[in-house]
């Protein structure tokens, strides 16, 4: 039992934090917000040069560090409110390629990710499924190829991705296809999201896909149900870590604000009713970090293939997302409340943190969805 981070891990986190505070301060970010989809090629290239895009990739393909390093980096991404498709590319899709892709696919794609030349997005969720993992998009086999039809909804970072990882039903089960968003028959509706980032709805009409675009062995895509589940779980763990960084920053900025804002002749931070609110925000952020560590730890241990391992992982990842989602909502709402009118203004960072924290809860299952998942596990447990 050991929750401590080693020197190397802490210095990596420190270097990410320093880089972002120097190169991605709030005003720089405001400049990025003004770009079409919030993403800046210069920043992305700088991430590549710093090695941030290699974190968690397999060592054979130039990767550095593992799940813990990725978690610590995601905390900094959250603290700096980074708009780049970091989570989609590095935390979600690259590990899915590493986990489920063929050797050729890994060798071709992962170095390009690390070099900053390939932004990825996972096109998995569908409108009718809401947060469920039901996939209706279908890839029918036609000779040596597949023909893809269907639609994916609110694909995070879909608006800026160079390549989409699309889940679809096939004759051998669920598969993941590498789809060029510019391919014939693919239509993207790109839009901004509430937190200043971007997403896309993606429609597929008779998109012809060579079998080599299926993640896995050539001509024989393996069923990707488990791999997709693990990928989403890693994405959830990364979102939790991002939320932790954002909550810590939100709490700091709120404490500073209440120390400087004066009413009734004194800093409002002297009022006990506000102090106790901030104490509660601190407690929830602290425990959210414990849950984030738990989620990352469970996903990292996903080598265990026993049913009991995957049930425990599922339950703890849902518990973490539920707790973090609720905490994110509470911290965000109260931070705005404690900033008073200024909390409603675009000018201060707090409104931007609040929007990102809210959308983190709404991504990959909100706290209600994951509460139900834990609740179902309890029912299952009572019957066995």
């Amino acid at each position, binding site marked *: *039992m050991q929750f*401590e981070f080693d020197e190397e891990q802490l210095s990596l986190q420190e270097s990410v934090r320093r880089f972002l505070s120097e190169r991605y301060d709030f005003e720089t970010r405001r400049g990025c917000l003004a770009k079409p989809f919030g993403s800046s090629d210069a920043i992305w290239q700088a991430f590549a040069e710093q090695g941030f895009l290699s974190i968690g990739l397999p060592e054979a393909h130039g990767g550095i560090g593992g799940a813990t390093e990725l978690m610590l980096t995601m905390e900094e991404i959250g603290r700096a409110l980074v708009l780049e498709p970091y989570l989609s590319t590095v935390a979600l899709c690259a590990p899915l390629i590493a986990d489920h892709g063929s050797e050729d696919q890994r060798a071709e794609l992962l170095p390009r990710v690390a070099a900053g030349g390939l932004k990825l997005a996972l096109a998995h969720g569908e409108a009718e499924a809401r947060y469920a993992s039901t996939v209706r998009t279908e890839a029918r086999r036609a000779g040596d190829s597949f023909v893809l039809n269907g639609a994916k909804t609110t694909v995070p970072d879909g608006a800026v991705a160079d390549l989409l990882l699309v889940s679809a039903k096939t004759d051998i089960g669920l598969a993941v296809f590498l789809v060029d968003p510019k391919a014939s028959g693919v239509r993207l509706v790109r839009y901004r999201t509430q937190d200043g980032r971007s997403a896309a709805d993606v429609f597929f009409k008779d998109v012809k896909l060579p079998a080599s675009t299926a993640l896995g062995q050539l001509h024989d895509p393996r069923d990707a149900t488990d791999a997709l589940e693990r990928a989403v779980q890693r994405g959830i763990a990364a979102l939790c870590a991002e939320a932790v960084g954002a909550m810590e920053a939100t709490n700091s900025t709120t404490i500073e604000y209440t120390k400087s804002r004066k009413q009734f002749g004194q800093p409002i931070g002297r009022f006990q009713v506000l*102090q*106790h609110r901030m104490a509660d925000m601190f407690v929830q952020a602290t425990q959210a970090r414990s*849950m984030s*560590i*738990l989620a990352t730890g469970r996903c990292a241990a996903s080598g265990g293939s026993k049913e009991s391992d995957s049930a425990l992982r599922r339950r703890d990842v849902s*518990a973490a997302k539920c707790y973090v989602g609720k905490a994110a909502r509470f911290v965000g709402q109260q931070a705005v409340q404690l900033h008073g009118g200024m909390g409603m203004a675009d000018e201060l960072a707090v409104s931007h943190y609040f929007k990102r924290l809210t959308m983190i809860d709404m991504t990959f299952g909100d706290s209600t969805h994951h509460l139900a998942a834990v609740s179902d596990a309890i029912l299952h447990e009572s019957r066995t």
Partner: protein
Amino acid sequence: MNLEYSAAEKSFREEIRTFIQQNLPGEVAAKVLEHKRLSREDIIGWHRILHRRGWSGPTWPKEFGGPGWTAVEQHIFDEECTAAGAPPVIAFGVRMVAPVIMKYGSAAQQQFYLPRILSGDHWWCQGYSEPGSGSDLASLKTTAVRRGDSYVVNGQKTWNTLGHFADWMFCLARTSSEGRSQEGISFLLIDMKSKGISVRPIALIDGEYEVNEVWLDDVEVPVAQRVGEENKGWTYAKYLLTHERVNIARLGESKRELRSLKAIAARVSNDGRPLIEDSRFRDAIAAVEIELRALEYTVLGVLSAEAAGRDPGAISSALKISGSEIQQTLSELKMRALGPRALPHVPEALDFGWQGDPAGAEWWAALSGRYFNMRKTSIYSGSNEIQRNIISHRLLGL
């Protein structure tokens, strides 16, 4: 980072579990698990069994006769004991006064008191709160006036837990009215058989007997029974409060109560179906399970930081707030699971082995009383409001 217990820790857990299985009397465990009345002998009996094994002071270092366990091992021990339904460690001696005597007591005090705490010969209670001094403890008015080699102590203590079982009381008394109120307090060890002490029960919300008023009327206390220096008692009392960071979370107990809640929800019929199949009720169980998971991994993080030699600071205040709220929610859900059966008050059914009417009361009769009783957890040991003050002053710099 590694969330798994080490092989050594796992085998330690196995050793503890086996010992408990072989030595914990079944009737005592059943009383604890069903929240039945425990006698002094039930609690002392288990303490003596642990003492024979060398485990009655699980938090103690080897030099004072403890097992010298790491924080993680102490946590495992607590988890296993609690899960099995062992009576709680007699905290006022083992966990509270003992660390103060170890750190600030004289050699003679250490030699006299510590072995008797370990053996169970001395049951300790606490003389802190007074009718006019609760959260503002330093305003206490009980006086200790020096007369020769003794102090003469006068005053009234309250919320004294299980003082009717106790042999000794550690007590804060005012030895000076100069300066700040914190500066005139001394830490005295008082024999409960001393002339002038009277212990009177306080009727509690659940009808049970747990706490007392203790009146001190010209009680003579030898100066040799003062710990450390005169007027420095507040420092020692604060040390006592911060000594144990994680026990306050009551993690093991809440894990046990969560299992018990699920068992009750599976047992209670809800119009012919097990209550646990009702998603509205089950979601409430899931919500508290998630809160408990967050508390558990926060506690484990604190243990890990301590093991690495880092001081996790005033985090125990956060653990107290979350831990007490979880205890209250669990007791509330256990009561609510009963539905209309939450209403009957059948005090006789709290005695082990009782099997009268109404039928079945032997397993459900304690749950509403326990709900009422658990409201104490956010009030005692520094109310949750005091804990929020501590967090905002010490951790947030407000």
